[in-house]
């Protein structure tokens, strides 16, 4: 048995049957990291020693017959923008290179309560700004399917680590597609929950009205399991919603008979790669065979949504990142005579190019003279986007689109052209603008062997419907049985 090939629900079964111990599982992952991390570069910080200690403690508890959580002793990887007490949280930035959070993010606290073991903190684009993980200050993560390609971003470390089996599952965060797009590029499952389902407390803020934490996993069932662990109201995040607690794994019925799926024609325009389109339509045929009712529809906001996204996200970022001033924490310049110098020079030296670009764009659209033309207008378009989705959900249970217009691109191909990089988000950003839940599942590979992701979008807090729709297609397609990353050089 190859332990690292197993899903989280398979690992749990083996733990329950005493066929495996937490130490065996954790050790298997550490061995795998020692073998493959040099090719993939998914981690910023490893906490493997601490992980082995925790695994031992949990095994001892189990051996003594003490009560442990259902998934106790299973390891995880965490995107490096979620605060972990005592372990560095860098946001892949020089600004936070040595930052050690004094507290845990709520999601981290919840994982600790479940006795899930962290193997370390995963690479990302600096402050989650980017679509390829190339904007990390520390390293460039590679796509396990082809090491010359990007893993997507900004949760590229999380997606690559799951795909390369360096962790059984991982947490990512999604502001405009940062969970779903790298999941699609790396052939794994990525779920962005409804805005407000998961607490953002302790997630380093990028764009607060768009950010949401979610699972990146090997399969849909694992996503449901991880969502069970992290969902729920938190008084420390006033935008988190008080909704009834659910067991999302119970929603996986492997049945979509009568499910109404809308396919917005605007998401299949000229910007979408031909092979991606073909494979998505093959999956649509599969849905029809499985008894779903599929119809073409129109959600005519894709272009508006992307422009709106970059206005709103950058505006919020320019405000959120104002806190980095070199006083209480973070990088401080050596070159200063007065307080103003500390602010300016620390920020100019501590932030990378893309972060500065977005702060400038955000400051611009919020500055007097441009506020009405850009920011105010974008907030109105946001209402329009929400309205168009609301109309669509009167007719359909889920909306189906490609996750990204192309498969993973080459390292370096887009890093100097910001607009081209932004276009990679065109299918995913409308979901964040509206605050809806979305999931990406791998459905096939292109001629070069690179994975293609399909995105399903659900109505507010209808993760159950969304997960079941994704699960049913996954069971029919069996992507994981047919394709494996090859670490091509």
């Amino acid at each position, binding site marked *: 048995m190859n332990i690292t090939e197993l899903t989280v629900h398979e690992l749990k079964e083996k733990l329950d049957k005493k066929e495996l111990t937490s130490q065996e599982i954790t050790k298997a992952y550490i061995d795998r990291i020692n073998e493959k991390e040099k090719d993939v570069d998914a981690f910023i910080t490893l906490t493997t020693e601490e992980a082995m200690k925790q695994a031992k403690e949990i095994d001892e508890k189990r051996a003594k017959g003490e009560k442990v959580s259902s998934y106790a002793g299973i390891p995880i990887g965490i995107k490096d923008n979620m605060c972990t007490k005592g372990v560095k949280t860098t946001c892949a930035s020089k600004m936070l290179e040595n930052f050690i959070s004094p507290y845990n993010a709520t999601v981290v606290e919840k994982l600790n309560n479940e006795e899930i073991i962290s193997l370390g903190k995963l690479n990302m684009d600096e402050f989650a700004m980017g679509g390829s993980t190339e904007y990390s200050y520390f390293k460039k993560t590679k796509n396990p399917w082809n090491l010359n390609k990007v893993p997507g971003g900004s949760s590229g470390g999380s997606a690559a680590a799951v795909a390369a089996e360096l962790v059984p599952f991982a947490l990512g965060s999604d502001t405009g597609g940062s969970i779903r797009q790298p999941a699609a590029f790396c052939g794994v499952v990525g779920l962005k929950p409804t805005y407000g389902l998961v607490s953002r407390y302790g997630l380093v803020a990028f764009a607060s009205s768009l950010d949401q934490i979610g699972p990146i996993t090997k399969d849909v069932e694992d996503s449901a399991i991880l969502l069970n662990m992290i969902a729920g109201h938190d*008084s420390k995040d006033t935008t988190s919603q008080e909704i009834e607690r659910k067991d999302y794994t119970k929603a996986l019925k492997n049945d979509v008979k009568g499910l109404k799926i809308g396919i917005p024609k605007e998401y299949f325009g000229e910007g979408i790669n031909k092979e991606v389109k073909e494979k998505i339509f093959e999956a649509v045929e599969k849905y029809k065979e499985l008894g779903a009712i599929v119809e073409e529809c129109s959600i005519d906001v894709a272009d508006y949504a992307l422009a709106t996204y970059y206005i709103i996200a950058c505006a919020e970022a320019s405000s959120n990142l104002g806190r980095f001033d070199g006083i209480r924490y973070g990088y401080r310049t050596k070159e200063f005579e007065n307080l103003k110098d500390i602010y*300016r020079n620390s920020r*100019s030296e501590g932030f990378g190019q893309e972060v*500065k670009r977005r702060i*400038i764009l955000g400051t611009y659209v919020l*500055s007097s003279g441009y506020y009405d033309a*850009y920011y105010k207008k974008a907030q109105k378009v946001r209402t329009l986007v929400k309205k168009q989705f609301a109309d669509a959900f009167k007719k359909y249970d889920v909306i189906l689109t490609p996750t990204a217009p192309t498969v993973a691109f080459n390292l370096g191909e887009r890093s100097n052209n910001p607009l081209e990089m932004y276009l990679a988000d065109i299918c995913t950003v409308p979901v964040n603008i*509206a*605050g809806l839940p979305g999931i990406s599942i791998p459905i096939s590979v292109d001629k070069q062997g690179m994975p293609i992701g399909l995105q399903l979008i659900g109505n507010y807090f209808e993760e159950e419907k969304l997960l079941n729709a994704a699960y049913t297609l996954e069971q029919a397609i069996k992507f994981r049985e047919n394709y494996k990353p090859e670490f091509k050089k």
Partner: protein
Amino acid sequence: MKVSKEEIRHIAKLANLKLKEEEEDTYILHLQDILNYANIVNNANVDDLEEAIGVQDKYNVFRKDEIINFEDRESLLQNAPDKENGMFKIPKVL
């Protein structure tokens, strides 16, 4: 959409950033590119729509204004680039 050198310097000042000469030039080009694209929003028909505040509109969350002490002072101060006697240290302001 043209962005001038003075404008980019003004924006950088507002954002508390100091840009190098060559950074100014690159950011002007990128900003123009992105703004040209972002101008699409002006074609959207939104005349009778209200601005969205966020995802969930029109509600407030109230709670009691209670003080919760954070006891671990050391862990807060350990990240400070400069400190003295348990306080953050900055250059003279007045």
